[in-house]
């Protein structure tokens, strides 16, 4: 790695630590909660964006992979009780990464057969897998079954969540600008054309799916270690839909759009709290109107900084 990158990493870690310190000392817990949930939402949206926005496949089972990550990491830090190491900050960090890897494995197993299918079928299969994963957790008594899994060490604070936001963002941005990323984009644009240019469409779809599942698992692990309690109902179909809405609102295929979507979808229900029960009606209405008026989402395929750049040729 170049020196610049090392400096960037050190600076961003420093900034995050600083903000974390300020938040925990001065801001009320409700705000911290919303901010951290935003971060988890961003990771979720960015990861789903890779499949839904960039590879052009429609996955409706993201909550399932989030659940795999959450349950795996939570199991490591609680019921498995491998060693006291997994109760410390670093241990929880490792557990979350293992959770991400487990989710990636699940993504591989799900993706390999189902990515042969197109469009709506894929949506339904991923939906089905998401539900099956949830029902499996419902039936494993060791992790609490329907009662849920309490007592997870609440180690994921602002710092850890936003560190992962940065890692996800940088990793996905680098990925999209590599030859892998261009191949994934070409799958979205035209599968047949991509295939005839020698791109192994099935392989790149699976690659996108696995990476996406990994980060979804990370989001799940962070979620588990932030809430310190999870149950199968945390990962229902509606959670997957929420992730899809984040991606769609922000703009399909735009990383910064996904971040924007993650913020909007997390913060908007909080702002709409004054409307009490009507907020969950307003939300889908916004989605429908958005689809009718601006179907490509707020940012479209563009990244947010591209909007301010002058057109190169005109």
């Amino acid at each position, binding site marked *: 790695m170049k020196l610049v990158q090392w400096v960037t990493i050190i600076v961003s870690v420093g900034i995050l630590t600083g903000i974390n310190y300020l938040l925990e000392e001065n801001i009320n817990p409700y705000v911290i909660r919303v901010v951290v949930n935003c971060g988890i939402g961003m990771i979720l949206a960015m990861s789903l964006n890779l499949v839904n926005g960039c590879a052009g496949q429609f996955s409706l089972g993201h909550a399932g992979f989030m659940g795999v990550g959450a349950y795996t990491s939570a199991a490591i830090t609680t019921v498995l009780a491998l060693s006291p190491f997994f109760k410390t900050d670093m241990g929880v960090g490792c557990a979350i990464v293992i959770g991400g890897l487990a989710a990636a494995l699940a993504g591989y197993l799900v993706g390999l057969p189902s990515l042969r299918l197109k469009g709506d079928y894929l949506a*339904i299969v991923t939906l089905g897998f998401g539900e099956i994963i949830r029902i499996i957790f419902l039936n494993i008594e060791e992790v609490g079954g329907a009662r849920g899994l309490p007592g997870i060490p609440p180690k994921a604070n602002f710092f850890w969540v936003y560190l992962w936001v940065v890692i996800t963002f940088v990793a996905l941005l680098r990925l999209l600008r590599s030859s892998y990323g261009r191949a994934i984009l070409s799958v979205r644009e035209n599968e047949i054309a991509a295939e005839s240019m020698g791109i192994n469409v099935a392989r790149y779809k699976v690659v996108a799916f696995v990476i996406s599942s990994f980060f979804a698992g990370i989001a799940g692990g962070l979620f588990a270690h932030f809430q310190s309690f999870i149950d199968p109902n945390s990962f229902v179909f509606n959670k997957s839909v929420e992730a899809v809405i984040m991606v769609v609102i922000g703009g399909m295929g735009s990383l910064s759009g996904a971040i924007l979507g993650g913020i909007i979808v997390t913060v908007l229900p909080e702002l709409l709290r004054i409307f009490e029960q009507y907020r969950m009606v307003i939300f889908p209405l916004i989605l429908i109107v958005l689809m009718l008026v601006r179907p490509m989402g707020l940012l479209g395929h563009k990244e947010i900084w591209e909007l301010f750049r002058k057109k190169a040729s005109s």
Partner: protein
Amino acid sequence: MLQAFLQNIINGMAQGSVYALVALGYTMVYGVLQFINFAHSDIFMLGAFGGFFLAKWLSPFISNPLILLMAVVIGSMAFCVAVGLTIERIAYRPLRTAPRLNVLITAIGVSLFLENFGQIIFGADPQVFPSLISTHSLLEGEGLVLNNIQLTVVVVSVLLMLILHWIVRHTKLGIAMRAVSFDIEVANLMGIPTDTIILFTFTIGSSLAGAASILYGLSYPKIEPLLGMMIGLKAFVAAVFGGIGSIMGAAVGGIVLGLAESFTVYYVSSTFRDAIAFGILILILLFRPAGLFGTFRREKV
């Protein structure tokens, strides 16, 4: 042993025919427009509530249970048709030329809207669906029960499916529907009013959902605003199982799914009730992606 087996078949048939009726709505809309109408499950839910209120209002005036049942079924069907057509007109028609993904997302939006709207209007607590016809057993052996409601459910479903089959196979409208589902653009060029046909497809699908919701209410008298979600998903699985776009397939798929579920609950565990449907879905998509009765169309450049 044998009694339990037969009993499961009876239960599965009754449950499965409800799935089949809902599945028909999915499969028909998918046939003409190639998208999953996620809102269909909520039309089903609204039909159940429509029937619930209709039965409440009408029961003081109509004493004959059979006429009351007919009135409730027809009223609920009409209500569902009105909802279905409104959704098509407002949300789906402006997106006729948009990418399919956008239509799918809109459908999810409509579905969420109806669910949350239902929770505000009807309250989140389950309501008890009035028993329109009194339950009595028609057949009673050792541990084997067949009551009149189960029989009604199966008979009404089969009747509706036969009517549908007749409409699709033997009327001019049916020919037009099949033409639109084969190729919407060419059908339009041939002078078929495609928008009207699509509206008609929604009419049939929604009315079947309305009828199914009353049949469901008769056999499981507990209705709530989120009731459509699981049933809708399973009905869609049934449609895919039979081959989406195929009417015969939806009917068979619904029955098979009902049977599979009833056997799973009896022989395995009731917690796996919802998983079996998706398990079936994944198996069928892996080994025969076009479904039992579907034909696979290879994409051309």
